[in-house]
């Protein structure tokens, strides 16, 4: 596997805070979980209505996704298993490597 399979089970999710209250709650949980923001590039940019994409490591998603459901914060899963997409992105190369 590429990168020693370190992204297996990681997800990329998208959410759009619907209120300032949600924004503050999300910033706090993102900070604790050390999620990797894909866009925007910093927590300070997140506000009501900001399209927010983040990579959630496998073990963090077991905490974050139930939290979002409980808080009734809508989210979309853009990539459900990051390792698979990474392998596909440079498909040619990884098969070359394997060869």
């Amino acid at each position, binding site marked *: 596997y590429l*990168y020693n399979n370190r992204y297996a089970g990681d997800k990329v999710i998208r959410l759009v805070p619907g209120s300032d209250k949600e924004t503050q709650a999300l910033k706090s949980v993102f900070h604790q979980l050390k999620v990797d923001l*894909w866009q925007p*590039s910093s927590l300070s940019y997140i506000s009501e209505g900001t399209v927010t994409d983040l990579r959630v490591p496998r073990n963090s998603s077991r905490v974050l996704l139930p939290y979002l459901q409980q808080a009734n914060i809508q989210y979309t899963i853009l990539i459900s298993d990051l390792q698979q997409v990474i392998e596909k*992105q*440079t*498909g040619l190369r990884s098969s070359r490597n394997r060869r």
Partner: protein
Amino acid sequence: SVPGYNYEVYHSLKEIQNWMYQLNKTHSDLIHMFSIGKSYEGRPLFVLKLGKRSRRYKRAVWIDCGIHAREWIGPAFCQWFVKEAIKTYQSDPAMRRMLNQLYFYIMPVFNVDGYHFSWTDDRFWRKTRSKNSKFRCHGVDANRNWKVKWCDEGASFHPCDDTYCGPFPESEPEVKAVAHFLRKRRKQIKAYLSFHAYAQMLLYPYSYKYATIPNFTCVESAAYKAVNALQSAYGIRYRYGPASSTLYVSSGSSMDWAYKNGIPYAFAFELRDTGHFGFLLPEALIKPTCTETMLAVKNITMHLLKKC
């Protein structure tokens, strides 16, 4: 341009540097490769000077890719641009005019240490790889380290943050080297283009404040024509406008620095996509993304050659 080199896959730093060496050897009439310095980890910072060699004074365009390591489509575009320029110099009147009348300084990978690290260790690394004396975190955001409103809104003083502005402006050897090069040639260079991903946007100054640039009409019309040219290829829409209001406020960016340093046309491209694949844009989309972006860059260049 380089037999057997596949422009529709992503390449490691080593492959890209070998590609530059090859071009420098086989196309010396149009290409000259040189280094403007060393990265933090000691790698050369290569630039390709593209254009018909001439004793006559020629204006220039600066193009950099790969300021943020994980945005791989950027370096892929820089390679694509060079390939297309060489391939169509004889057959395309517009490209021939561009290369006869201008030089293009092209830096295919700005953040060489970070790009290498994104191939070997962390696919989603963004920053440089400089070490911080106090914290265990590595790296500075090379697009927050320029001496323009440094470390103000939209940048972080914390070394572990992705938008860390660095211990001081131009602390990063990569930023210092490019700033030095551009400063020395500020009279010659008429456009600064920087390629990032992802968001499908064409941005121009200012990033660090909500204000209108003095030559807004000319820059706005260049951007408007460029995104229309881009859309004509596959119907992909790019938003365009001042970075502060189109994307978000950020200080210490290369685009603002280039503009404040006297380069009248400064743009930042946020290439495909809008998040379906994000940084993992598949190799199958390299060709359409680069083809449409070529139209935009040619449009901006032709705008430069006319009087606005």
